[in-house]
């Protein structure tokens, strides 16, 4: 079976439990088990070859540009771990079938479990460190889901998050380390990396890479000072603890250290970091374990201690130590998984895991007692069990390394004995109690089968190590060391060695310690010590608070500051860019300053400053804006831009009218809110902004263009190619007609947005508020004065005529669809002002929505028309025609396009104003039914009395 398939099987299988759970819990467990079994079989089929020393590979390209490929390989180390993962996995699946309660969603559990299993198998089979990283992070994720499986338990949630945070952090650090490693070697393939020990250790990046990778390993394997997450992950259901937190996931760190051992070990840095960490963890974990009353917590810290044990061995950097590490990995997996399951059984049966509430269970649960005791004795390192052998070999190695190391290792072993004995003594021995929360008895076979099998292994390996695991240890060690195996022997009796004495000291000391446990426990409980979880929680909480504080401080909705920062950024960056480049003074001849131009400039300067200075009187500031608009239009005329002048002046008036319509409902004055210093600051920002822009344009204006502008082409081609003499208009409707197309769409969208917004306003709280709205200043009588009405009657047709004129001449002289549209819109506005919106609207046949839509469609369809001539979109055509008695005239498709522009402009402006008018109507305004309020011709004596019509009776605008 391909390695890729072995890794993929659990992932694919993860879909099964969810489906099979409908067929029952047994079916679900069977399906899950089958998947694992299948993968295990696939793996074992490779075993003979691996034992022969072959390396099995499977390679698929995934992201070659990154060097991340789906490459797998299987050697001894991989075989051991994959075997453990799948083998113990199988047992856990069996165990969990009986462990989980009816109310627990089993399908979900098995799915998560298989995900996790796949990730673990992936880690140990990866031949690409980036791929390995992926699986690595996947284990963090899937364990997050498994730890948090019991969602209602706060410990589960917090434990899951803590585990994710800590191991996630390590995993992320490891990314850095792996990337460095890959950079040094030039490949992310493990098989390549493993052959580049010299290059790696000679690189200046060796140490950072080492530290980063070890961070990943240490966090995953709960090494000091990252050991604290593991006990809290015990909130997970016991099968999870047994699987993840004893047998597999926590060993991923060990696996990686072992995997990298050939290239990373052997340096001082490796030794000091890894061995020291391992040693401290081993002792500390054992000490804490002794004082834990929760069975699972005890086992958890024991696991921490044993992981430290193995880490230390790997840290020694000697081949023999590596062999011992491998051996203990196997041993620990067997007895610790059995112990976890035992703890689970006790919890399941006695409904408590608290040692203080247990004791005397050997009478009630004899099978469990045997299993648990044998496993615990192995954990304590009592012969002839497998734990004894690896512990002996470890002590031997420690003794060779140095006196201090030996002493501390013995101390660790001593505490290990103590808590192991405590496990046996305080749970099973002693008198039977009558206050168990439930009536404990041995569970059914299904539940104890798995731990029993494991304990059988514990005993068998202890008795016949070479038969049982000799080959496995040799093959695995060979893979770890990556070279010749050292001399070692797996046996119970090594003769009288320092290790023997250390062992004896540990066992005796452990006994003594257990005897004095009561007093020690009180001392321990009384002693102040840092509670890792509290510190972690406080730290995360602090970070969260700090993050919230700083985020909310910076993003507090203070738009004024945002805009200030924006301005300053633009000015600073622009200035910096300027100073970094070569700047030659402009040599372009400047135009003379005429007195009228000076006057115009004075007007603009004064009016714009006055707008800013007097802005708190809102109406007045609009008047001042008008002055600016007027003068700029005048300036455009003076500087040869008649089209711009026309557009600017007409847009300006429509804008002002919009602003006036809005201002009606807004406060008429702005309160003075900013402090003088704030205003000064804003003035400074504004000043430098103005200086920057002014300086920039001055620099541009005073230099000649270094190239021929593309507009030379437009001037050349306007008449022959575009058929018009007003080059600006030809650019708008032809050369750059596509811009104009976008522009009218902007206008159309603006109107739609305004309309939609009005609808939303009228149906929301604003609509209710408007109903109760009263004008904030007294209104004069005479809404529609007679004089204006009459004048409009004459002027509107004239203005429409002007609009037609401006439209028709646009292609050849200043004008065009846009300006024409505005002129017509202004004419309509005049009518609306004169006789009121309702009266005018009632005489208006075309809907503005329709007008906008037709405008856009007309422009688009004109453009598309060119396709039928097999030309690109917006290709124009024109011709000259003559219908007597008129002169020859030109027709261009561009004019059709301009019709679209015209319609959109009129529709958009009017729809916007209509929307505002609807707001006014909601504010209690009456619709006029007569063109003028006072009509002396209407009644014989006295003016007509206009009748108010409620808003809802007048036609709504759509």
């Amino acid at each position, binding site marked *: 079976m391909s390695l890729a398939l072995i890794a993929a099987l659990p992932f694919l299988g993860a879909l099964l439990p969810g489906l099979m759970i409908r067929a029952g819990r047994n079916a679900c467990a069977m399906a899950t088990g089958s998947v694992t079994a299948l993968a295990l079989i696939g793996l074992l089929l490779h075993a003979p070859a691996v034992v022969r020393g072959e390396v099995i590979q499977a390679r698929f390209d995934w992201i070659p540009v990154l060097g991340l490929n789906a490459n797998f390989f299987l050697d001894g180390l991989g075989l051991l771990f994959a075997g453990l993962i799948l083998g113990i996995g199988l047992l856990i699946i069996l165990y969990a079938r009986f462990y989980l309660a009816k109310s627990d969603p089993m399908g979900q559990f098995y799915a998560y479990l298989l995900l996790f299993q796949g990730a673990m198998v992936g880690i140990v089979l990866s031949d690409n460190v980036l791929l390995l990283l992926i699986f690595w992070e996947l284990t963090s994720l899937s364990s997050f889901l498994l730890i948090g499986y019991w969602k209602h338990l706060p410990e589960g949630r917090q434990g899951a998050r803590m585990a994710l945070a800590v191991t996630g952090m390590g995993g992320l650090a490891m990314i850095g380390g792996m990337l460095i490693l890959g950079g040094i070697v030039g490949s992310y393939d493990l098989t390549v990396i493993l052959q580049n020990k010299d290059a790696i250790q000679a690189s200046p990046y060796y140490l950072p890479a080492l530290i980063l990778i070890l961070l990943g390993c240490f966090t995953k394997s709960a090494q000091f000072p990252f050991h604290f997450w593991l006990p809290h992950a015990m909130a997970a259901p016991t099968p999870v603890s047994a699987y993840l937190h004893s047998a597999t996931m926590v060993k991923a760190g060990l696996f990686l250290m072992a995997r990298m051992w050939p290239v990373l070990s052997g340096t001082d840095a490796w030794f000091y970091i890894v061995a020291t960490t391992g040693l401290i963890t081993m002792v500390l974990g054992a000490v804490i374990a002794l004082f834990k009353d929760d069975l699972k917590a005890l086992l958890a810290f024991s696991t921490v201690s044993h992981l430290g044990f193995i880490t230390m061995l790997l840290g020694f950097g000697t081949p023999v130590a590596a062999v011992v590490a491998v051996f203990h990995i196997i041993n620990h997996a067997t007895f610790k998984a059995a112990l976890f399951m035992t703890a689970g059984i006790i919890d399941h049966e006695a409904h408590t895991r608290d040692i203080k509430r247990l004791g005397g269970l050997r009478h009630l649960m004899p099978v469990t007692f045997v299993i648990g005791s044998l496993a615990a004795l192995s954990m304590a390192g009592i012969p002839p069990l497998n734990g004894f052998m690896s512990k002996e070999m470890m002590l031997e190695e420690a003794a060779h390394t140095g006196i201090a190391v030996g002493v501390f290792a013995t101390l660790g072993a001593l505490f290990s004995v103590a808590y192991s004995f405590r496990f046996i003594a305080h749970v099973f021995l002693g008198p039977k109690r009558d206050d168990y929360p439930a009536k404990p008895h041995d569970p059914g076979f299904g539940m104890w089968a798995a731990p029993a099998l494991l304990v059988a292994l514990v005993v068998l390996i202890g008795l016949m190590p070479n038969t049982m695991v000799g080959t496995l240890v040799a093959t695995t060690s060979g893979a770890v060391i990556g070279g010749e195996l050292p001399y070692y022997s797996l046996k119970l009796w090594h003769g009288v060695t320092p290790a023997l004495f250390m062992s004896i000291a540990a066992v005796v000391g452990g006994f003594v310690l257990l005897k004095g446990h009561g007093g020690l426990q009180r001392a321990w409980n009384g002693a102040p010590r840092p509670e890792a979880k509290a510190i972690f929680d406080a730290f995360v909480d602090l970070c969260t608070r700090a993050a919230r504080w700083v985020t909310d401080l910076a993003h507090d909705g203070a738009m004024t500051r945002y805009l200030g920062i924006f301005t300053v950024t633009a000015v600073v960056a622009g200035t910096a860019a300027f100073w970094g480049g070569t700047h030659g003074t402009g040599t372009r001849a400047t135009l003379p300053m005429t007195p009228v131009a000076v006057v115009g400039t004075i007007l603009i300067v*004064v009016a714009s400053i006055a707008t800013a200075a007097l802005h708190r009187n809102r109406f007045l500031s609009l008047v001042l804006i008008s002055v600016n608009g007027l003068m700029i239009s005048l300036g455009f005329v003076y500087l040869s831009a008649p089209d711009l002048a026309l557009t600017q002046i007409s847009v300006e008036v429509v804008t002002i*009218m919009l602003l006036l319509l809005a201002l*009606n409902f807004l406060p008429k004055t702005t309160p003075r809110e900013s402090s003088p210093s704030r205003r000064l600051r804003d003035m400074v920002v504004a000043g430098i902004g103005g200086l920057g822009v002014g300086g920039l344009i001055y620099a541009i204006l005073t230099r000649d263009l270094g190239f021929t502008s593309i507009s030379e082409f437009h001037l050349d081609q306007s008449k022959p190619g575009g058929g018009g003499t007003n080059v600006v208009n030809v650019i708008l409707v032809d050369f750059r007609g596509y811009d104009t197309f976008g522009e009218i769409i902007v206008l159309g969208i603006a109107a739609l947005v305004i309309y939609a917004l009005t609808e939303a306003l009228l149906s929301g709280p604003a609509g209710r508020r408007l109903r109760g709205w009263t004008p904030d200043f007294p209104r004069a009588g005479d809404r529609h004065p007679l004089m204006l009405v009459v004048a409009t009657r004459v002027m509107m047709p004239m203005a429409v005529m*002007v609009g037609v004129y401006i439209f028709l001449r646009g292609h050849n002289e200043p004008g065009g669809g846009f300006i024409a549209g505005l002129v017509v819109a*202004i004419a309509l506005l005049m009518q609306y*002002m004169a006789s009121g919106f309702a009266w005018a609207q009632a005489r208006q046949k075309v809907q503005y929505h329709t007008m906008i839509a037709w405008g856009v469609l007309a422009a688009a369809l004109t453009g598309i028309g060119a396709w039928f001539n097999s030309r690109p979109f917006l290709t124009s055509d024109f011709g000259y025609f003559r219908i007597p008695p008129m002169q020859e005239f030109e027709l261009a498709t561009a004019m059709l396009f301009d019709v679209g522009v015209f319609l959109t402009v009129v529709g958009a402006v009017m729809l916007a104003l209509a929307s505002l008018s609807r707001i006014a109507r909601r504010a209690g305004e009456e619709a006029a039914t007569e063109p003028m309020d006072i009509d002396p011709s209407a009644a014989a004596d006295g003016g007509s009395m206009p009748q108010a019509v409620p808003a809802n009776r007048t036609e709504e605008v759509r």
Partner: protein
Amino acid sequence: MIDVAIYITFACFGLALLLNLWQLATAKGVGDRVLALDTMVINSIALLILYGISAGTAVYFEASMLFAMVGFVSTVAYCKFMLRGDIIE
């Protein structure tokens, strides 16, 4: 002769614009300022026509026509606002 006259007339209307500005800046009420703005528009129209004469082109004519139309509409709008608040009720 025409050039001199044009020059003087330019000066007159330029000065007129400055006077309008003065009024705009110093007037007490908003109404006076709207009046000043309206006068400004009228003076601008004169300047535009004058510019057309001095440049010998009719290409700026439409601008002055539009100025007249727009100046009227905006002044009326301002006044309607002062009178009624809503300009197109």
